[in-house]
């Protein structure tokens, strides 16, 4: 599976070019910074630095951009842990246990867990990519709308069924999120629920709504607290505890491995990527854990599951991009644009003719994952000081920063308005015991599930029997129904007679 002469040529390319390595640390730092800023997505970070790469040679340019990509992948988890704002949509599941860990004074450990899980996720995904870049492309081509819709529904229903204290409330919140995701014009051209507001035709702005639901709603309720972490001794920033958290990640090899595999596979599917991978990995880890009741309350395995999956999805999406020339998402679309700027076209011919470059890109990413560890620790040490800020300063600062982030995503007042409406809704939902995260998941997946279901419906000509031709999709749906049944049964048993 490995073309050894090409791999040797790749090592030669990398060892002979100091310029390629000069850009790794700046790229990681830029990625960490942009990833940590709410509202600034990985795609936006890459778009902002893309012009700078025009003046570099092809390999240093791609290494610089993939460093930004790798840094942003972990950067998103920092605000997710510290202030419950996922810096990117790929870090949504990191908030579920990362933020409760921070609230209980374990922010150092949570960030260490996230960092090591991210590094291992990136490393694992590129090892998989190094070994299987060609067969992966073949698998990706076999995944159709039936399978994609099934994956989306799976992630959503699993989270709805296990979030919060009540199954009915979890599913209600998921349904609500799914309906929010369907507002506006669908792919068949029907306009629903837009209330005559022009910007709602494109749907509810996802990132502002997500930040409103998860962060603004929490911040409203925290006005009566003095600090994120109550006890003064727990607010200390400790490199020893960050490293201890990192070491703890290694004590969950199954969670790491499962997250990495889920990340690579889902990341490779165009249009799905890291924002779904972290949710599916989290849901699977929670479903199979013996201590599932402690998830959502600060279980380290939740952070490991989410971060290993969102980081490893980078390798998956790179596989699709390199082997097929298809961008799996916005970030890989920018990378393909960088290819084009250097007169290189990604895809099967690039794989065939420039395999040494493909291997050089993959090998440089191994190095990036290893360099991310010390760079990430340094960045985390600075970023963690947020827990020392009094809430009376933190709340207005974060709300205003999020508002600007929401504006930056949409380029209009639509972003801030959405942030506010969903912030208030999230606060009310949390107050009445609804799992707000389930709404976020539904919102993220609603449009995707509807689009894929519509495609599947059109492909089958409206005949349900055609579903039998897609055993993988059926398998996923059966697994989902069994999980749902088990959750309902367990809840019924918990209730007093």
């Amino acid at each position, binding site marked *: 599976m490995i073309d050894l002469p090409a791999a040797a040529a790749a090592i030669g390319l990398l060892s002979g070019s100091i310029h390629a390595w000069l850009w790794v640390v700046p790229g990681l730092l830029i990625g960490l910074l942009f990833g940590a800023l709410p509202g600034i997505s990985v795609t936006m970070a890459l778009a902002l630095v893309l012009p700078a790469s025009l003046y570099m040679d092809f390999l240093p340019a791609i290494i610089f951009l993939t460093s930004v990509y790798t840094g942003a992948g972990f950067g998103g988890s920092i605000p997710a842990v510290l202030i419950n704002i996922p810096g990117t949509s790929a870090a949504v599941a990191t908030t579920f246990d990362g933020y409760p860990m921070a609230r209980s004074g374990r922010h150092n450990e949570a960030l260490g867990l996230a960092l090591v899980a991210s590094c291992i996720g990136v490393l694992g995904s590129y090892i998989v990519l190094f070994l299987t870049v060609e067969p992966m492309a073949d698998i990706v081509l076999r995944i159709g709308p039936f399978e994609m819709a099934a994956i989306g529904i799976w992630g959503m229903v699993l989270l709805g069924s296990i979030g919060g204290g009540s199954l009915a409330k979890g599913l209600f919140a998921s349904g609500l999120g799914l309906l929010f995701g369907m*507002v506006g014009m669908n792919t068949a051209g029907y306009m629903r629920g837009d209330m005559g507001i022009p910007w709602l035709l494109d749907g509810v702005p996802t990132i502002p709504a997500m930040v409103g639901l998860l962060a603004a709603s929490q911040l409203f309720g925290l006005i009566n607290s003095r600090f994120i972490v109550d006890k003064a001794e727990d607010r200390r920033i400790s490199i020893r505890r960050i490293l201890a958290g990192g070491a703890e990640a290694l004590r969950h090899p199954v969670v790491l491995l499962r997250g990495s595999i889920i990340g690579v596979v889902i990341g490779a599917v165009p249009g799905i990527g890291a924002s779904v991978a972290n949710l599916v990995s989290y849901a699977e880890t929670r479903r199979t854990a013996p201590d599932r009741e402690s998830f959502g309350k600060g279980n380290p395995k939740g952070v490991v599951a989410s971060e290993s999956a969102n980081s490893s999805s980078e390798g998956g999406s790179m596989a699709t991009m390199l082997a097929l020339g298809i961008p799996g998402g916005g970030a890989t679309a920018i990378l393909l644009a960088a290819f084009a700027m250097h007169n290189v076209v990604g895809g099967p011919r690039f794989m065939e003719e420039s395999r040494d470059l493909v291997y050089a890109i993959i090998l440089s990413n191994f190095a990036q994952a290893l360099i991310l560890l010390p760079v990430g620790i340094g960045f985390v040490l600075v970023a963690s000081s947020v827990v020392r800020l*009094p809430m*009376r300063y933190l*709340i*207005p600062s974060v709300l*205003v920063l999020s508002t600007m982030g929401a504006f*930056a995503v949409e380029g209009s007042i639509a972003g*801030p308005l959405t942030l506010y409406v969903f912030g208030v809704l999230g606060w009310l939902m949390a107050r009445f*015991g609804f799992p707000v995260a389930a709404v976020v998941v539904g919102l993220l997946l609603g449009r995707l599930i509807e689009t894929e279901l519509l495609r599947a*419906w059109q492909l089958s000509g409206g005949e349900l029997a055609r579903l039998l031709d897609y055993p993988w999709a059926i398998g996923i749906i059966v697994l989902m129904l069994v999980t749902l049944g088990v959750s309902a049964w367990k809840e019924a048993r918990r209730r007093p007679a």
Partner: protein
Amino acid sequence: MCIAWGQALFTTALAGAVLAFLLEARGVSLVADNLLLLQPTAIATLVLWLVILAGCLRPRAVRTADAEAVEAEVAAESPRDLARVLLLVLAFGACIAGLEPLGYDVSFWLFVLAALALGGERNPVALALFPPIFTALLIWGFRALVPYPFPTSLL
């Protein structure tokens, strides 16, 4: 019979919005391309509303543990604490509403000042300096980063 009124009313309001969305979507078109996922999701959500409502309306002896926990948490909050949260929500709403007429700079400045005061900051130097300095840094930073123009009055 002891009814969890807050939860019941909130869930009913959400269910009302779901029903309105379903009816509006059905008004657009009844074809599968329009309702394939929307209609079953809306109906399932309405059924779940009935289940949640039943949990809120049962006699205290058989109310679900979840409903009890929510009621206990809400009851533990003092009226003063709740008033502070509501004032913050209103202040943030006013800030968002003022972004275009007042400008992002003035609106943010006033909101940060109000939120600091609500959070208990009484140091006049901090109240005078932090809001304008933070706002200025934010506006200049985002102006450098974001390609879209946004209205400001002073900066």
